């Protein structure tokens, strides 16, 4: 199978995330709600996905910056939990993520408890970004080469294919899983394993280690030759 000339090769892309200040900063929940519609769509992206590319540790309790801020700056753990339950990958696009955020904030503000007007002990800064993507020219066709290439690819490239790939795909599939489909049933368990990794629970470096480990197990089990 690995020698099959009909296989579509995997081409590694890479990206660079340029982060910029929007000048939008808020200090209370009400201010956050008021500013949200004005935030550029790339800001929604940054606070849910782009955050993976900035200094970040696995122990972060929440999966997006809005939730982290609600807890750490406002002390509103309940809201933080609600915001953290947003599964952005299930949304049809970034505007839907924004709408879900707005709904949660509206519902919380409607309850009118004191935390909705409390000033946070630090501001929330809306950060925008430009994602520049480029072709590395690196292409692999065999599973064995693919596994080695994932192991050595840059963290940004890994982010582009594995994390951001899920957002770009209508079915929520990362690029690696999508490419492995052409190998048929022989990679089914591998694909399931790759798809089942919760990308919110690890830092980017740890995620890469985990994916490389999954690929390594598959390879050691003879999967790369037998698929």
């Amino acid at each position, binding site marked *: 199978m690995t020698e099959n000339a009909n296989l579509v090769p995997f081409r590694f892309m890479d990206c660079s995330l340029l982060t910029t*200040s929007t000048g939008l900063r808020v200090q209370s929940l009400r201010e956050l709600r008021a500013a949200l519609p004005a935030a550029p769509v790339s800001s929604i992206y940054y606070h849910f996905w782009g955050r993976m590319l900035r*200094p970040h*540790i696995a122990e972060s309790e929440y999966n997006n910056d809005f939730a982290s801020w609600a807890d750490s700056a406002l002390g509103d753990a309940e809201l933080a939990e609600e915001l953290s339950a947003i599964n952005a990958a299930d949304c049809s696009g970034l505007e839907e993520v924004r709408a879900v955020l707005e709904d949660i904030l509206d519902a919380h503000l409607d309850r009118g408890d004191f935390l909705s007007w409390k000033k946070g002990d630090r501001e929330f*800064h809306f950060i925008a970004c430009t*994602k*520049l*993507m480029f072709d590395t020219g690196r292409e692999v066709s065999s599973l064995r080469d693919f596994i080695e290439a994932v192991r050595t*690819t*840059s*963290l940004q490239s890994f982010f582009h294919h594995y994390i951001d790939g899920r957002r770009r795909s209508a079915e929520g599939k990362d690029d690696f899983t999508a490419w492995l489909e052409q190998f048929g049933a022989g990679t089914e368990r591998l694909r399931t394993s790759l798809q089942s990794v919760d990308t919110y629970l690890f830092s980017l470096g740890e995620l890469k280690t985990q994916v490389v480990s999954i690929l390594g197990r598959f390879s050691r089990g003879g999967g790369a030759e037998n698929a």
Partner: protein
Amino acid sequence: MPDMIARYAEVVGPHTMDSLKIIADMLRGKRIVHVNSTKEGGGVAEILSSMVPLSRALGLDVSWEVIEGNPEFFACTKTLHNSLQGMPGGLSEGQVEAYAETSRLNALRLGGTLEDADYVFIHDPQPAALLGLLPGRRGKWIWRCHIDVSSPNRSVWRFVKKHVEGYDASIFSLPDFAQPLPHTQCLITPSIDPLSDKNIPLQKGEAERVYGELGVPLDKPVVLQVSRFDRFKDPLGVIESFRIARKHVDLRLVLAGGGATDDPESGAVLDEVQRAAAQDPDIHVLVLPPDAHRTINALQTGAAVVMQKSTKEGFGLTVTEALWKKKPVIGGDVGGIRLQIINRFNGFRVRSPEGAAMRIRYLLAHRWKRERMGVNARQYVLENFLITGQLRRYLSLLIALDSPGGEWERWI
């Protein structure tokens, strides 16, 4: 030069360097110039000492120019620096004149190089006025602000703003530092060079030897702060923390630093520190020359705990250096340190000498936690704060500036 790329590849991985090379190739043939106010001493000079050779090794045409000024000019820019970090006061008429005159002389001296460049990075406020004095410039100009301007003295910020609003973009280390300006404001954190004398792994025994040469016995744990003798670095607060901690645990304090040629205040602060430390055999105040990089490396390597108890900090490079050497760091809960130190993960952020003393005691009492935090610290720097990553972001900004507008997500 390929050797240099290969050495970085050993640290960050070959494909990370390949990607950097691809980005650099997109800027091949373009002329890039960095301008700052000192060739040695201070974080900016250190970053440029690494970034310029690395850029050249990647095939880029990069040069580094340093503005020249008299003591009056540097007194003015020190006031600018302090006021932008929130100190009260303002510029005197004489200082404003010295700034204008020095800028004019430097514009005459550097004009040809800067007007021909495709991209010019102007670092900090000292050379900021050059843009307005070179109307024949053809390239894109970027103002790189390294300091914490989150709550500047407003009259001084207005003075600086007048000089920087005409730039094509500015770069700040944190979103908190960004100020309203009519152009793109990028957020890029500074970095350290893993291959520099300050950060390479030392030979076995070298740290002990250097401590010996400096007259600091390693008979008890060493708490270290390396920084310029600058009030914002709070060296007196470090001494106070040490004295509180010493009531409970036997230790030494080393305060090591030097001045930068653009910092006229460092002598006065050093005098205060030496007076505070006088007669105390467990406090060692070391005045090091600006090129004592390997000595600083040895001091950091041999210390048990490293501090950076700043009260204002754009970004503490010494924090990153210590983290890289697997040292947990106790830092002031300010500025860029908030991004560098994650409480209990790779150090502690503190707000008072008492808080710092408590964390010194904690780290000295829990050896395995100290070691665990040290491992986290190294990995955190590897993923976030190395020169290769910073250069990648700078180059990406230049590429983005050449294709303004368009989608936020685009192929280049």
